[in-house]
Structures are given as structure tokens and as C-alpha cells.
């Protein structure tokens, strides 16, 4: 029997365009499972995505309203749609480059307004689509096509950023921690206010190859190793946490 969440896919758009081993396909599955489990009618939803491999997670694959907009602007487009039709359940799915560099200001201001929408950052710590250039979430020392000697600029912690800006639901997970990821996506869908999910989703082709991961599976395993649950991280020093990824729920305020 076909899994019930698969009915939300536009069959004629399959197979997905992602490279073998890409995390973005897993993330799409997680989003659809969360929607299915939350009982939301997908017809009430609007998915907005920007430009990048991540932009293809909802568009054109999800059988609902999807809007594929210019690089960096999906949150602004989504704001317009939500304001005119507040009953729409709006979800933005886009990449770290799209949401955090070129579109960083929209992210900050949407969080500040605490506007009711879910923003999922498919964070592969690189610009995947354009050939693997450094992004604002690329870790120190990581090799990309624009940081051949290793990245020297510190990465941005997007969860801390939107928390400071005023988001009322903030969480991080990875495509490795699938159950956890589905759980926070479900919670975000039920939350009224600005929900932000930093979903780590490895890019084996542009990131993995250059940083010597033997296979997509190795890269996933390493992602797991880098992660520390928030509860555990609380008792760890900043020094020990350097280069690690803290996963969990950082902010959960107000209505659910």
C-alpha cells in the first residue's frame, strides 16, 4: 500500500530533480508526513520557495498552491499572500543561501513581526544549485568553490538570529533525525505566529565531494555525530560546542 503522504505529490512531476543522496528529498518527505499527521487540508496551504535546489522541494512537486519566486524573496511574497488571505496556511521552504544571505533582511523582519507562517530552511551549508559556493551557514575551514583554502568567515546561527528578532517558534533538526524533524514540523504547523525550522539537509555533490566524504551515507553519519541535543548542550561549554550543531526546540511561545 502506498504511504498516505505520497498522495500529496504531483505524480507527473516525479522523479524529483535532486542528485542521488541529497537531503532535500528526505526533507520533502518529512514535510508531507508532518502535514499528513497534523490533519491539515493541504488545499488550505500555500508553499512559497525561492531559487536554489531547496526551492524545488515544494515546487512543483507538492499538489497544492506553490509559488516559485525570485532568489531571496519568498518570505516577502508569502507575507503578501498571507495578509490578503489570512486563512491560508503559508509555508516557505528555501535554502540557506536564499533565506539567510540574499534574503536575510526579509527573514529578520518577518520574525520581528511574528507573522503567522512556517519557514523551513533546507540548510545544506552551501549554495548547492550554483555549484557549491560558500554560504552564510558554511562552517569554518570548509572547502567550497569560492573558499578553496577553507572558509574563514564564521557561520550564522539562524535559530539565534530569528529568536533575537522575535520569532515565537524556533527549532532545529536534521534529515538524519527524521522522527524528530517530523515532530517539530508538526508543531510548527500547529503554531500561530512565526515558526522557523532550521533543517540540516546534506548536499553530497557540492559539499560532500569537496570535503572528502566517502559517500552520502558517510556524510549523514557525520551530520549525526556533529549534532548535540539541546538538553545536553545546556551543560556544555561554548568551547566544547564549537563546530557542533545543537538540535531541539529553542523557542516555543504563545498559542498552539
Amino acid at each position, binding site marked *: 500500500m502506498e504511504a498516505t503522504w505520497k498522495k500529496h505529490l504531483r505524480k507527473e512531476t516525479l522523479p524529483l530533480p535532486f542528485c542521488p543522496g541529497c537531503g532535500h528529498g528526505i526533507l520533502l518527505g518529512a514535510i508531507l508526513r508532518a502535514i499528513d499527521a497534523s490533519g491539515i487540508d493541504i488545499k488550505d496551504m500555500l508553499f512559497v520557495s525561492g531559487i536554489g535546489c531547496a526551492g524545488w522541494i515544494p515546487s512543483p512537486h507538492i499538489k497544492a498552491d506553490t509559488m*516559485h519566486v525570485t*532568489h531571496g524573496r519568498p518570505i516577502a511574497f508569502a507575507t503578501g499572500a498571507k495578509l490578503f488571505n489570512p486563512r491560508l496556511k503559508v509555508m516557505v521552504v528555501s535554502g540557506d543561501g536564499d533565506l539567510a544571505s*540574499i534574503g536575510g533582511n526579509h527573514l529578520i523582519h518577518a520574525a520581528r513581526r511574528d507573522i503567522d507562517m512556517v519557514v523551513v530552511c533546507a540548510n545544506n551549508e552551501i549554495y548547492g544549485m*550554483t*555549484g557549491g559556493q*560558500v554560504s552564510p551557514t558554511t562552517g569554518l575551514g570548509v572547502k567550497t*568553490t*569560492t573558499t*578553496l583554502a577553507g572558509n574563514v568567515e564564521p557561520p550564522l546561527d539562524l535559530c539565534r538570529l530569528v529568536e533575537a528578532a522575535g520569532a515565537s517558534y524556533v527549532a532545529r533538526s536534521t534529515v538524519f533525525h527524521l522522527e524528530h524533524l517530523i515532530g517539530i514540523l508538526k508543531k510548527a504547523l500547529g503554531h500561530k505566529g512565526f515558526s522557523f525550522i532550521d533543517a540540516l539537509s546534506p548536499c553530497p555533490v557540492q559539499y560532500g565531494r569537496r570535503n572528502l566524504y566517502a559517500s552520502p551515507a558517510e556524510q549523514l553519519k557525520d551530520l549525526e555525530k556533529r549534532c548535540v541535543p539541546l538538553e545536553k548542550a545546556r551543560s556544555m561549554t561554548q568551547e566544547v560546542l564549537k563546530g557542533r550543531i545543537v538540535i531541539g526546540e529553542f523557542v516555543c511561545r504563545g498559542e498552539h
Partner: protein
Amino acid sequence: MARTFTEGSKAVAETVKLCRPNVIAAYPITPQTHISEELAQMVANGELKAEYVTVESEFAAASVVLGASATGARSYTATSSQGLLLMTEVLFNISGMRLPVVMTCANRAISSPINIWNDQQDSISVRDAGWVQLYAEDIQEASDLHLQAFRIAEHPEVLLPVMVCMDGFILTHAYEPVDLIEQKEADAFLPPYQPQYYLTPKNPITFGAMMGPESYMEARCQLDRALCGSTRIVEEVAKEFKKRFGRFQGALVDTYCIEGAEIVLVAMGSVISTIKEAIDLLRKEGVKVGLLKVRCFRPFPREAIKEALVGAREVLAIDRAFSPGSGGVLATEIRASLQDVKKAPEIKGHIAGLGGREISVETIINIVKDRKSVGIEDRFVDLKEALLK
């Protein structure tokens, strides 16, 4: 000079390196990426002593090179399509402040619909930004143009930014044999930039100040005069380049088989090579057809165009971009240039090759053979009627 077989983007990056830029800022976008990645690599391995900034958007890239140029740095950026449009506000600032920034535009279509393939809608859409715009026919010309671009931009009578336009993929990703200039020769052709006005605490000045109704118009007029006047410098620099390096692919314009031609095709960019092939075939059949290549689109070389087209019976303009609601931009400007010519040729506009649709030798031959009188309505070439229903 060394001949190598190389990718268009690499040839351009090698030439930009020869220009010894002090500051480079770029944001990745297809099909520009290979140029900026090559330059990043050169900076990383110490071959090129420049500051390379991996900025957060094209808006930032243009702003960074503006700031750098205002302090007297030779500054360079590269982009395409959406990236160029995002830069638009800053493009006007760069020219308004008379800063000699050089940029490569790897020409690509504009969304929506999303399309990463080639046409020239991006650079054509910013034609009013006050930049010199030069269009390359092949990889050799694309790389040579960068050395010329800095010379033109930094000329004391010009002091304006220059955009080198090269067709995305067709030139950026293709491989051709290219003659690369030696650093010593490049240095002799392009000495270090000697800014006349720049930001320094020793002599504080203001860039970008407010000018009201009493003086704004004069500042704009000066910009126009400098841009129009740059035609002379574009020609001078192309001639000097020829003298030093033996290569000349036109200055403001170039022509091919135009002697005695009754029909003249006019175009810009990589389609020029295709047109030349088509002309060779047509000439064999006895069709009196020639070519006018527009190499410098801004400033628009009205006089040179007039001179080349007087005597022709028909002019067939090929635009790889258009102004919706008006038509082909090149066609329109050619019409305007010839309006005071007695017995002016009939000008037929053709919009072709949008979003990567191929313009083949056959396309050109068909354009020449099925010339219809369409008035001033420009014709979309090779439309798929079934998709229009």
C-alpha cells in the same frame, strides 16, 4: 602571447587577472559562476593579489565595488540575469558617481518563467544605467574586451563604468583556442589606475551628495556627454589594442561583406559568428547580404551605424531581447538613427533566440530568405504556433 585551448569563463578570468584588480566582489549566479570561481581560486592560491569578497547578494557585490572604486581601487564584479537586475539601483549610483568599475555580464534570460539560458534581456534592460556596454562575438573578443574596458573606464575624459557582455553558456562555457596576453604586455597597455578624485582622509571629498532642481539636470547632462564622448575613446583603445596585440574585432561597430550589400543584417554578441557563416553560404547563392556588428551598444554609435547602412536596401535587425509593448531594442534604435537619411533602407526587426532558443545558420538564412514587409512591427522568429494557442 600564448595560445591555449580554454573555457570562455577561464579566458575572461585570466584577462581580469592581467588587469590587476584590487577588489573583486561577486555573488554566484549561472552562467557567471565559472568566472568568479576562477578568480576566487587565483586569489586563494596567491596568483592574484586582490581582495575577494564573497558577498551576500548582487546588491552587496555592486555596493562593495562602488565603495572600493570610490577609494581609488580598480574594482571588478561579474553577474547575470536576476543578479544584474538586483544591482540596478547601484548601477545608476556607480555611473552617477563616475566610478570606472568594470563588470562582466554573462548574458542570460530574465524570469519569470525561470530560465537559465542565454538571451540579452538582462543587459538590455539596464541600458539606461549610464554604463558603457560592449558585446563580445567570441571568447577571444570577450577576454580582450576586459583589458580594453578598464582603459576606457579609467580614461580621464570618460570615468564611467563599463559592462562587458558575453552570451551565457555560448561563450562562458564553450572552449576555443584563445591567445592570452603576457602580464608585461598587459601592464604596458593598462598602467595602474590613477584616480583623479577618490576618498582619502588627506583630502576629504563627498561622493553622491544631493543636487536639487538647480543643478541635478546638469549633472545628468554631463554624464550623457561623457558617455557620448566615450565613442572616441572606445575607438582609440581598440586601435591601440590592435597595434600592440595585432587583434581587431571592431571598435564601435564592425562589418562583414558589407561592400555592395543590398541586405544588411545587424546584431550583437555571439550570433555574429553564426551570421557570418550564413552570409558565406548566401553569398555563394548570389544573395547580396552583409553584416553590421554592433560592438558598442552604449553609447549608441549612431554615426558609425548610419555610415555603414547608407546604401543598403534592407536592414534586418536581430534582437536577442525586446521591450514588451514596443519591440526589438536594437531595431528601434537603428530606426531612430536613420530617420534623417534620405532613401533610408527599410528596417525589419526580428526578435530571436530568447531563453536559449537556438539561432542556427538556417535560422539566419530563413530570416534573409523570407523577408516580409511587416512595417515597424518586429517579428518573433521561429515561434511554435501550437504553444501559443
